[in-house]
C-alpha cells in the first residue's frame, strides 16, 4: 500500500504528459468504438461474436 500511495501521488500534472495521454485516450476510444460499435455491416459481421460476447449493443 505504501508503494501504491507513493505512485498515485505522482500525478500527471505536467503539461508534457497531458497531450500524449489525451491523444492515447482518443486512440483508445476510436479503436474500441471501431471494434465494438462501427455500423459498417462488414465490420459488424466480422466482429459479430465478439460484440455479443462483450455485451456491446448488437442487432
Amino acid at each position, binding site marked *: 500500500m505504501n508503494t501504491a500511495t507513493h*505512485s498515485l*501521488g*505522482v500525478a*500527471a500534472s505536467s503539461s508534457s504528459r497531458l497531450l500524449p495521454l489525451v491523444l492515447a485516450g482518443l*486512440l483508445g476510444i476510436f*479503436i474500441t468504438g471501431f471494434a465494438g460499435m462501427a455500423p459498417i*455491416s462488414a465490420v459488424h459481421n466480422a466482429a459479430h*461474436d465478439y460484440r455479443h460476447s462483450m455485451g456491446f*449493443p448488437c442487432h
Partner: protein
Amino acid sequence: MSYFRNVVFLAAAAGLLAGVVLAALQTLVTVPLILQAETFEGAAPMQHAGMEMGDATAESGVPAAPESVPAAEQAEEAWSPADGMERFLYTLGANVVGAIGFSLLLVVASEFAGGVAGWRQGLLWGLAGFAAFVIAPSLGLPPNMPAMPVADTLSRQIWWAATAAATGAGLALIILRSSAPLAVLGLLLIIAPHIWGAPQPASYDTSVPEGLHQQFIVAVTLTNLVFWAVLGATIGALRKRFADSVPQPVRGFA
C-alpha cells in the same frame, strides 16, 4: 513523444495478451451459446407473424418485429465470415483489436492517476474497468443474443458508452479522491444513467429460451471478469519494463 509511444506499446502488449485469452474463453464458453441462439433466428419472425394473426390488436406486435427483421436480412446480404475457422479468426482479430482499445483506455486512466505500481494494483484497476465497461452497462442492457428483440442500435450504443464513462468517472471520484462531497458526486454519477434508463425494446417476445439467455449473461460476465483481471494485472506487471527500456520517460513512469 516517447511517452506517447510507451503508453501505446504498453497498452498494445497487455491488450494483445488479454485479447487472445478472451478470444479463447469466448470460443469455449460464449460462442457456442450464440450459435445455439442463432438457430432461433428464423423462428422469431414467424412466431411474431403467428401472434399477429391470432391477435386482434395486431398493432402491438408490429413495432418490435419490423425493427429486428430488416437488420437481420441486411446482415445476411452483406459479407460475413464463413462458419468455422474463418469466423473464429475474425472473432480473434476483433478481440485483439478491441482489447488494445480497452487497454489504451485503462493505461491512460491509470497514468492520469500516476501509473500502476505492480500487477496487484493493476488487478484492482482491471476490476474498476470491469465495473465500468461490463457491470454498469449490462444492468440496463443485459448482453443480448441473436434472435432477441432490441431497441434502436444507435440509442443503445450512446447509452452504453455514456454509462461506461459516467461509471468510470464516478469510480475515479470515489477511489482516487478522499473527499466526502466528491464521493457523493461519484455515487450519483454511477446511478444517474440508470435513473435516465436504457433504451428498451417495444416487446420482449423472443423464441430464445430464458434459460439459455441467463446462461449467456453469466458466461459474458465471467469471461469479461477474467479479461479485465488479466488486462489490469498485465499492465501493472509490464509497466516497469516499458519504463526501463527507454531512459527518458523513466521519471514520468516511476
